[in-house]
């Protein structure tokens, strides 16, 4: 068990280091180099400032930002400064990137965690139900609905829902209010519709996976024996079948999280929520690379941690995984 955990941790660390290299390298692939994009002279849309700067100025700036050093030194400086919590300063607003991210993390966290919770609970319940009733119309209907849930582009569904329910019928507020951010509790009111919409895709995935794993478990010989021996149905479903079916679903959760992150970007854009998702979009449009870099890196780290946790959880649940990898 311990060996398995250590091995998983090692692979996760390698993956995170690889991600950091990728994110770091992205900045230096820019046409014109990082100084150019700070000044804004690379000729792309957005960006600010004039195009030409005398070479002497560029050299001074390069020295100031440590761009004279060989790439591995720059990489090391970047990594060590991250460990100190310094992600650099935004090109756009010159605030420390850390401040920008912390300000906007709140609504996004509420949104993602809320949607994940809803997806797991609702998707899980519906998955179990549809597996138990898989021959009946009830189960079939749920399966068909999830099929639809996976294929519909969620940003379209979001605009339709926000439009009809929000703008036309005024059931839910369609937009985040302007002005200072409401407190966590008050903002929940504005997040109801976004959370519902986000949870549809992730919930559909979880439901389908749970349905298929549970259906497979319910077909196995040991379940049939339990039925024959008169074990009460609830015990069979929950204690026997579910325990065996839960494995693939746990593996699915980090993937669902990744899908939720993509969905958050779009949903925040539609509902004007000042979160990390909309921050990424505006930063890309403004060519604000430090913010984009930091956000992508943090995302990669979080996904890697989630994968690690789900692998460990799988190991805890299933002794077969503990022993042989």
């Amino acid at each position, binding site marked *: 068990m311990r060996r398995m955990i250590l091995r998983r941790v090692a692979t996760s660390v390698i*993956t995170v280091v*690889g*991600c950091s290299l990728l*994110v770091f390298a992205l900045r230096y692939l820019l046409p014109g180099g990082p100084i150019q994009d700070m000044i804004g002279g690379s000729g792309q849309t957005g960006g600010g400032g004039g195009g030409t700067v005398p070479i002497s100025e560029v050299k001074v700036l390069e020295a100031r930002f440590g761009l004279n050093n060989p790439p591995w030194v720059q990489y090391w400086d970047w990594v060590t400064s991250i460990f100190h919590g310094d992600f650099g300063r935004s090109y756009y607003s010159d605030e420390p990137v850390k401040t920008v991210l912390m300000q906007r993390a709140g609504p996004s966290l509420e949104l993602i965690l809320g949607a994940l919770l809803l997806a797991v609970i609702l998707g899980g319940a519906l998955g179990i139900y549809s597996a138990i009733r898989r021959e009946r119309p009830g189960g079939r209907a749920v399966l068909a609905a999830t099929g639809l849930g996976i*294929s519909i582009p969620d*940003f*379209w569904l979001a605009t339709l829902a926000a439009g009809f329910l929000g703008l036309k019928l005024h059931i839910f507020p369609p937009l985040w209010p302007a002005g200072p951010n409401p407190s966590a509790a008050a903002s929940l009111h504005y997040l109801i519709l976004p959370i519902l919409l986000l949870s549809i895709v992730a919930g559909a995935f979880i439901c389908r996976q749970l349905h298929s794993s549970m259906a497979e478990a319910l077909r196995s010989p040991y379940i049939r024996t339990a039925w024959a021996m008169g074990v009460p149905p609830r015990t069979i479903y929950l204690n026997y079948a579910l325990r065996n079916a839960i494995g693939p679903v746990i593996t699915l959760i980090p993937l669902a999280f*990744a899908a939720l992150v993509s969905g958050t970007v*779009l949903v925040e854009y539609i509902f004007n929520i000042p979160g990390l998702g909309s921050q990424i979009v505006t930063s890309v449009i403004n060519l604000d690379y430090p913010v984009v870099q930091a956000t992508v890196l943090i995302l990669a780290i979080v996904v890697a941690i989630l*994968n690690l946790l789900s692998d460990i959880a799988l190991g805890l649940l299933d002794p077969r995984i503990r022993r042989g990898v």
Partner: protein
Amino acid sequence: MSIQPEEVTLGLTQHDLVPDEESAGPALSRRARFGRGGRWYEFRLGARIGLVVTVILILAGVFASLIAPANPLHLFPQTAQGPSLHHLLGTDLDGRDVLSRLIYGSTSAYEGVGIAMLVTAIIGVPWGLIAGFGGKAADEGLMRLADVFFSFPALILSIGIISVLGPSLVHSMVAVGIAFAPSIARLLRGATLPLRRADFVLVASSLGVRRSRIVVRHVLPNAIAPILVQMFALASIALIIQAALGFLSLGAQPPASSWGNDLATAYTYFLSNPTATIAPGLCIAIAAWSLSALGDGLREVFIFG
């Protein structure tokens, strides 16, 4: 859009493709049995519908200038109107005909998907082949690299790449292609591994055929089947991601017609013309579904072939 490529395995999991090391590979090259063909009615109903719809949409895109009732860039005086006799789906905020924009949007949608799939193939196929046929070190290294890419959601990775290249249709589709390449690489590697010990490969190499030639002329055609199937599923997702990027204004820039972008701008005048919000999204959903249904149908052909 939110579907990650690695989740869509279309029934062919890695377990099917990765063998235990002792087993001998297939004896006969599958090329001999490749052209199973099959009557059109042997395909599943969903796949047939998908094929027809995709062909119709692509043709609409190709012949857009002939079919569209109006120039998609022309500004009519009636702005933000609902459906009417002259404008079957209404007009947008600047007065352009929504239906014409939809038809021209089909052109850019399928162009985009084509670019993305081309990039995925160009990057992913060599990646997978080298990982499958190179040494252990190459395999490990390349697959670790693929894992690194896998930790990013495709949309976020595409956004990151667009931040470097700048927003445009081509750039966004290249970004999507790069994001999907590891998935194809991994699949291809899994498909080539059992073929390393195949009899026809051993015979060819004992006859002195260069390894590179063996890989390209013998191994690749036999391993290509799951790749082709997966490409359709990825194409469907690429379409949705393209629309999502267009939605965020990171794809084709206005006034070019793009389904995703039109959807976003239509939302701003939702109350005046809700049809303009429904229509592009419907196109995206139908186009994406047809591509993936087509892929599902192909999968059955190859598995039984």
